[in-house]
Structure formats: C-alpha cells, structure tokens
C-alpha cells in the first residue's frame, strides 16, 4: 500500500514539475489520453477505421523522418519499404499460414533486406541524385508486380489475408499501441549517440568522416532501421485492409510520406506523427466535398508552407517555448526567468 502511495506521489511530482510547466509536454499527454479514450467517446466504425489508418501512417511518416530527416539522405521511394512490408507480410500469412503477430515483423525484416539492397548502390550517390534514384525502386517493383500476376495478384493485389482481430476497437488499440511504442523507439534512437551521428551526417558528412566515423555504415544502418519500421507499417496496413495491392507502391504514396514529414517538420519524429494526425483525418473530413478534396488539401499545404517553411510543429514550438540562454532548458515563453537556473529570458 505504501509502495503504491509512493509511486503515486512520484507521479504527481513528475506531472507537476516536468509536464505542466511545458505546453509541448502537456500536448503530448493530452494526445495520449485522446488516443486512449477515443473508443470510449465514439463507437463509430468509420471514425475508428480512420484513426487506425492514421496510426499506421504515422509510423510510416516517422520512419521516413528517421532516414531522411536525420541523416539527410532524401528518400523519394519510401513506398518501396511500405509495399515490400505489405506484400511480404501478406505472402507469409497466406502461404506459410503464419498468424499476423509473426508475419508483420517478418515483413519488417524483408523490408530491411530491401533497405540493404537499395542502400548499397544508393550510398554512392548524394543529394538530388539520391532522391531521384530512390524514386525509381518502387516503380521497378510495381512493374514486376504487374508482370507476374500469378505470384503477386497483379492489379488486384493479394487478398484473403487474416485479420488481426475481429473487433475494430482491438484493432485500433493494437495500431495505436504499436504507433506509440515504435515512435518512442525511433525517438530514443535519434536521442542516442547513433542519433547524434545521424544529425552530424546531415550537417557535414566530410567532418564526420574526418572524425574517424564510418559514415557509410551509419547511413546503411539508417536505411535498414527506417526500412524495418516502414515494413512493419506496411504489414499492419496489409493485415488491417486485408489486401496488399499495388497502391502501396505508387508514386503518390511516396510523395504523400514526404508531404507528411515535411509539413510536420523534419528531424523531429513528433513532427511527422503530428502532421499525419492532422492531414490524414483532414483529407477524410473533406470527403463530403468529394470533387474539391484533393485541391483543398493541396491549397492547405501550400499556404502552410508559405508561412512556416520549416514545418508546422517546430514553428508552433518556437512560438510557445523559449530556450534558456544559460542552461539550455526549455521554458514556456510567458516566463521572464528560467524555471531552473533563474537566468533572464529574452
């Protein structure tokens, strides 16, 4: 009983001293509660379905950020990992009869393989060359999918995959839980030493090499990690939609990932996740305006980018928080002195 009281008190202290003081942390907590309690407020199948898909795509967008935002290796063909994950999870499930909890991680591993295969030739390329070359890989794979319809189902894709669970609420919780878990892992990776090296590679690769770090290995690692997370998103998508079709490999899919990530702000992880949670439901919400839907979507994108070219979330965060010049701790911008070292904030 005392133990419980101790932990409760500790929780209250943390909330009071670490969470309430910063609006961005409050937003994260509110977001978590929103995801947790969403099925309580709505039992609408359609809404739950949209948010399940949103969670899946949030994993995908964050994985793009891990590769392209952090190491600066702009990948225009992220749909490759997603598609490979989806197709391999579907095939493993269908032919080897492995249930979803096995086939989704295996799909992720196959996507890692795809990351290695495209990573090794692509690492010799830089900047725009790399971006435009990576665009080619999902299209090559799509051509193969159409050319061998016996194996891949061609235009119709592979159907008849087992669903994860019967109830849509459980499906939603699985997707949301995985989204939280995987995005935290990605965030932790970017916060570790490896993440610092990723940052450094984007800023100045030559300097990193001069410091005695094998940048090729780290870039390949970024490709594999990103491929793994994107592959898991693909496997989840395949099992949730119960179909793995060529739409997962389309150019527009690759573009959509880049749109989400850049809209939210690159090299942040939370930016792309937040952007998916704004843009994907927005696109669904505009559905009642069927004809003008994509046009409105494009206009929103252009207008937001004109005013905040660094992305939405870094812009918002800079508005509501300032960094203490002495101890580098973030404070809410309404404070005049730092909450830790009491230095004056300008």
């Amino acid at each position, binding site marked *: 009983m005392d133990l419980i009281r101790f932990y409760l008190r500790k929780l209250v202290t943390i909330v009071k001293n670490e969470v309430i003081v910063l609006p961005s942390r409050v937003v994260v907590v509110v977001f978590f509660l929103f995801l947790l309690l969403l099925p309580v407020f709505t039992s609408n199948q359609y809404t739950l379905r949209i948010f399940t898909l949103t969670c899946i795509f949030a994993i995908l967008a964050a994985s793009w950020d891990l590769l392209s935002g952090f190491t600066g290796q702009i990948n225009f063909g992220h749909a490759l990992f997603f598609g490979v994950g989806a197709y391999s999870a579907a095939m493993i499930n269908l032919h080897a009869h492995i249930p979803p909890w096995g086939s989704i991680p295996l799909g992720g591993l196959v996507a890692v393989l795809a990351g290695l295969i495209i990573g090794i030739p692509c690492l010799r390329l830089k900047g725009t060359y790399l971006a435009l070359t990576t665009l080619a890989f999902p299209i090559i794979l799509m051509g193969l999918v159409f050319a061998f319809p016996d194996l891949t189902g061609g235009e119709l894709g592979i159907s008849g995959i087992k669903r994860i669970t019967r109830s849509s609420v459980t499906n939603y919780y699985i997707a949301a839980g995985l989204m939280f878990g995987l995005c935290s892992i990605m965030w932790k990776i970017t916060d570790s030493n490896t993440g610092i090296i990723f940052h450094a590679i984007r800023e100045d690769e030559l300097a990193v090499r001069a410091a005695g770090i094998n940048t090729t290995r780290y870039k390949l690692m970024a490709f594999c990690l990103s491929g793994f997370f994107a592959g898991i998103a693909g496997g989840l998508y395949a099992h949730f939609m119960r179909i793995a079709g060529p739409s997962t490999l389309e150019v527009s899919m690759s573009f959509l990932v880049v749109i989400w990530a850049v809209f939210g702000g690159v090299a942040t992880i939370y930016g792309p996740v937040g952007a998916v949670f704004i843009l994907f439901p927005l696109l669904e919400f505009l559905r009642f305006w069927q004809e*003008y839907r994509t046009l409105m979507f*494009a206009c929103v994108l252009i207008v937001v980018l004109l005013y905040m070219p660094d992305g939405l979330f870094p812009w918002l965060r800079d508005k509501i928080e300032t960094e203490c010049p002495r101890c580098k701790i973030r404070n809410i911008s309404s404070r005049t002195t730092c909450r830790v070292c009491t230095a004056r904030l300008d």
Partner: protein
Amino acid sequence: MYWRHMFLDITISGLISGSVYALLAIGFSLIFGVARIVNIAHTAFYMVAGYCIYYVSHEMGLHPIWGMFAAVILVTALGMVCYKFLINPIREHEGAVLIATIALAMALQEIMTIMFTGTYLSVPSLVKGYFVIVGVKVFYQQLLTFIVALIVLGALWVLLMKTRLGLAIRSTAQDKEVANLMGINEARVAMMTMGISVGLASFTGAIVVPLTILDPLMWMHPLIMMMAVVILGGLGSLKGSFIGAYILGFAEAIVVFALPAGAFLKGSVALSIMILVLLIRPEGLFGVTFEEER
C-alpha cells in the same frame, strides 16, 4: 517481314518518346541548375498545355494550331506566376520547395479533373494522313512532332550558347555568388529560366498531345522518366540529358514491342538501366561533379 515491322515500330516510337523526354529533361535540368529547384510540377505544366489545346480546339472550335500558341503563352505565364508567388518566397528551404511543387502538381491535376472530368480525351492532329514504309504506317503528325522537337532543341542550344541571356543562365548555374558579383541579376535570371523551362514543358505538351490521350494523371509517367533521364545523363549536363533521353526512349520502345507483358515492364527496365549506369558512374553519363556545397 515481322522483324522489319518491329524494327520500324521501335524506331518511330523510340525517336518520339526520346525527343519528348529530351525536351522535358532539359527544361527540368535548366531550372535545377540555375535555382536548385527540383520542380516536380514540371510535367504537370505539360499536362495543362495539353488540356489548353483541347479547350481551344474542342470547346472554342478553332484550329489546333491556335491552341498550341495559346497553350505555350498561357502555361508559361502560369509557370512564372507560380514561381513568383509560391516557390520564390521559400527558395531557401529545400524541403519546402519540394513539397510546394508536389502540391502544385496535385492542385493542377485536380483543377483539370474538375474542369474537364477525369475521362480520356483526345485532340485532333495538326496534319492528317500517313505514308507507308515497308508496311508500317507513319503518320505525318509523328514526323512533325519529331522534326519540331529537334528544331526546338536546336533553338534552345543557340539560345544557351550564343546569346547573352544564355551566358547569364550558364554562369548562374555554375556559380550563383560569382555570377551575382559580375552584375548578373540572379533573381531575374532565375525567373527567366523558370519561364523558359515551363515554356519548354508546355511546348512538349503541345506537340505530343495529338499522339497521346489526355487524362489528368498523364503527368506521372513522364515525370518519372524525365527524372531518370536527368539522372542518367548527369544533372546539369544538357548533352547528357539529350543522349540519356534517347537511350531511355529506345529502351522503353524495345521493351514494349519485343517482350510479352512489355507495357507493364517498360518503366522497370528503363529505370533499371538508369540504376546500372549509376552503379558504374555515380555522377551519370556526362555529369559535371558539382563543387560540394558546404
């Protein structure tokens, strides 16, 4: 007989798609070279030009040649307006420019869908009729498209190599700061280059549209092939774009006519060729290795 047929078909189709890719790729690499803008909306302008001709020739009932003029002028103006108000304000942010051009392409695609519906449309050709060589029909329109494309490429070469504007464009592409110090108005050159680039795209659309079918998604495939051409030939090299375009155009034609299920594989084979070349020469066939910008 069969082989001769196929050979001719491949030649015609390869020459035409090669010229189209060359025109598109040169426009794309011009604006990339001068302003470092990866303009995803490049082929969307090509699509808009096609619809412009359709509107003039079908809805207004004029001869398609007027449509061509209207298309080139209107789309070039549209391109420059888009550059001025959408791309120029965020030019320092590479990622944002990328998304802005993707969004622009999407917006153009949607506007065309709303105005003309998503159905397949066709445009009458400028010259009717055909002649026959060894049993293969060659339409005069195909011949015209090819010749006009070559003329435009020649004119572009003269513009870039022999005029003061061309000199300004080339020097800005080589080194922006130094060009600025030499008294070249970099912002104006970028604007002019955008105009030329979009003008080329709309012209390509104008000459090729009678040979193909119009639909709002027609910009996707040329976009990918154009990027592959630019990479294959080497970014910033006009000669490379020219040769790369014909290589990929012929590769596509050979795959389509010679392989079963070729229509599905044409993109895959052409892009695989590009990747193979990059494995051997990472800067493309005629690539100029840019000074690393640190």
